[in-house]
């Protein structure tokens, strides 16, 4: 099991001068500490127009700053939107290769297609087309990274033969993932040999079924890249505090705030009837979470909130169903004071990480037992 941290970069109103800078600075301070403590990776979303929920519209810049402040952590796009109205594929290949070089070969490339009308409508992208454009992009990217010259005539985009520069330093190319939000996308990931980057907060039981499907299908995949990235990652919240009551209380506040923010988004499917988006994105899992079973402290099953013992139990539960990585959201709207977020990372590294094979050596080496 590996542990990463995951950023939406949510910025509370009122948007006074300096508030965005303060939030970005807090995130970067957390990243630097997480690197010291032995966390494996930092991931950043690409979102546009999502008021308060996410001000992370230029993740390649944020991730570059992360790479400059860290030594070992991998830096991950979680995800880059593979829709031509958002990002031209040539620009994606160029930017990601540059980031791979600047980070010393620590880049992970998550791919996806956006799920909100806020974004799809804002860029005037056709929701019916996004799955197809994503599919074209993920098939082209490895070739753009690895072939000296590349030309392409496709459905959503074309280019004459050119040399796309620079090239990533990871060989054959950086690991590729796909965001798994809609049911069945884990199958799309497996069929293409891509890692499954879970971005919703579904139940452990649901995830178990998805992992089983994924492992079965990826065993016989036709990879779009030159390597198969057989990994399942899930996203979770993290607030770990030695005081059980405080851990639960602050953690639940973060959870509730995030749910409210996410609920205000307009899912593509709600606004625009299309078979391209079979689910309401985050909304169904938020509804289930809001009304679903929770422990006596009011924390839903599988959520890494509370004292170290409870957080350990939650992480072990995910491990038991075959999840390889958990990426943690550390805050929402700065509801948790920065010092508490940093303490939560330290507490997790000290009390929880050592119980996991891959992470314990990293945590110890990085002084996570302090």
């Amino acid at each position, binding site marked *: 099991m590996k542990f990463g941290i995951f950023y939406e970069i949510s910025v*509370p*109103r009122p948007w006074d001068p300096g508030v965005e800078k303060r939030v970005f600075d807090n995130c970067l301070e957390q990243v630097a500490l997480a690197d010291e403590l032995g966390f494996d990776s930092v991931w950043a979303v690409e979102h546009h*127009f*999502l*008021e*308060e929920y996410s001000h992370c519209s230029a993740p390649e810049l944020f991730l570059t700053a992360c790479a400059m402040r860290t030594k070992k952590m991998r830096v991950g796009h979680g995800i880059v939107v593979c829709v031509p109205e958002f990002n031209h594929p040539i620009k994606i290949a160029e930017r990601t290769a540059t980031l791979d070089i600047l980070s010393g070969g620590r880049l992970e490339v998550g791919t996806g297609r956006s799920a909100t*009308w*806020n974004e799809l*409508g804002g860029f005037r992208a056709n929701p019916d087309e996004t799955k197809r454009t994503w599919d074209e992009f993920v098939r082209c990217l490895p070739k753009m990274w690895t072939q000296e010259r590349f030309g392409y005539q496709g459905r959503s985009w074309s280019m004459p033969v050119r040399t796309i520069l620079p090239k990533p330093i990871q060989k054959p190319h950086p690991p590729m993932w796909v965001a798994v939000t809609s049911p069945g996308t884990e199958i799309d990931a497996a069929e293409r040999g891509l890692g499954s980057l879970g971005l919703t907060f579904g139940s452990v039981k649901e995830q178990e079924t998805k992992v089983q499907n994924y492992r079965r299908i990826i065993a016989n995949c036709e990879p779009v890249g030159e390597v198969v990235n057989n990994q399942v990652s899930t996203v979770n919240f993290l607030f770990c505090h030695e005081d059980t009551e405080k851990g639960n209380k602050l953690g639940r506040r973060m959870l509730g*705030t995030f*749910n*409210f*923010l*996410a*609920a*205000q*988004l*307009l*899912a593509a*499917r*709600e*606004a*625009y*009837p*299309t*078979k391209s988006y079979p689910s*309401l994105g985050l*909304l169904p899992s*938020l*509804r289930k979470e*809001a009304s679903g079973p929770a422990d006596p402290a009011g924390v839903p099953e599988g959520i890494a909130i509370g004292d170290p013992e409870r957080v350990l139990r939650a992480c072990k539960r995910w491990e038991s169903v075959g999840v390889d990585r958990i990426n943690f959201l550390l805050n929402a*709207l700065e509801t948790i004071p920065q010092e508490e977020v940093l303490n939560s990372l330290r507490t997790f590294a000290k009390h929880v990480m050592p119980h996991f094979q891959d992470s314990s050596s990293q945590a110890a080496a990085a002084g996570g037992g302090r």
Partner: protein
Amino acid sequence: MPLSGTMDVAAFAAGAHLAEIHGFKTEEWTLKGAQILNVYYEVDIDLAQQLLPVTVHPVIPAYAMFNVTHYPESPVGPFTIADVRLGCRAGVRPRGFTLASYVDSEAAARELAHRWGFPTRVGKVALRAFHDRVVGRVVTAEGKPALEVEMLDRDFISGGDIQYVSSMHLCRNREDGKLTIVQCDPEWTFSKAERGRPNLVSFDSALWNGGDKVRPNWPISGSYAIADVLIGKIRYVSDPNQDAFRGTTQVAA
């Protein structure tokens, strides 16, 4: 913090045409073969927020739903209803807050108001399906044009692709005289579904309890469907002056 509705409920109620609901216990209506036209437009969010009670949160971007539905059969005979709703969230649940409804049948207007709190008025409401478009028109009883909305370039989709949301109706409860919000949770069984290009030909916000605050500014989508509709029992009611988590009461399973 996340945005909430900022409506002055008492002031809105004083100026709006609201229903008086006759308690929260009503039997279900099963309405066969309904023809449903839905057109969605983005609207000015700062103004829309003022038309939503604190019970709900605006959706970002804010959007309005223009719905015209013909029911060929019902317990009170055939009728056609049009309503304008604002997309919102009750807690984390997607909903449409109904600003006003027009119905072309006095009996249907009365029953819908008394049973589910629909803010109905009687008017001329028409839904017409042509080979290239579906058109909904509403004219008030006084002869004022209130709405003309179209879905152009009809194209078949699956009923499963359509995601209608439940509606919320601000009304007065006859039993205690208090203002309340009733949630109406219909179920739809589709036999046909289409999607098309939305076109709002004309719309008078003031005739829909919206003052000058509903300002459509960008088309989203249009859909047309034929479905059996079950308007079920009232399950939830909310205090219009409290958020959904604190102010919602379950009145039936």
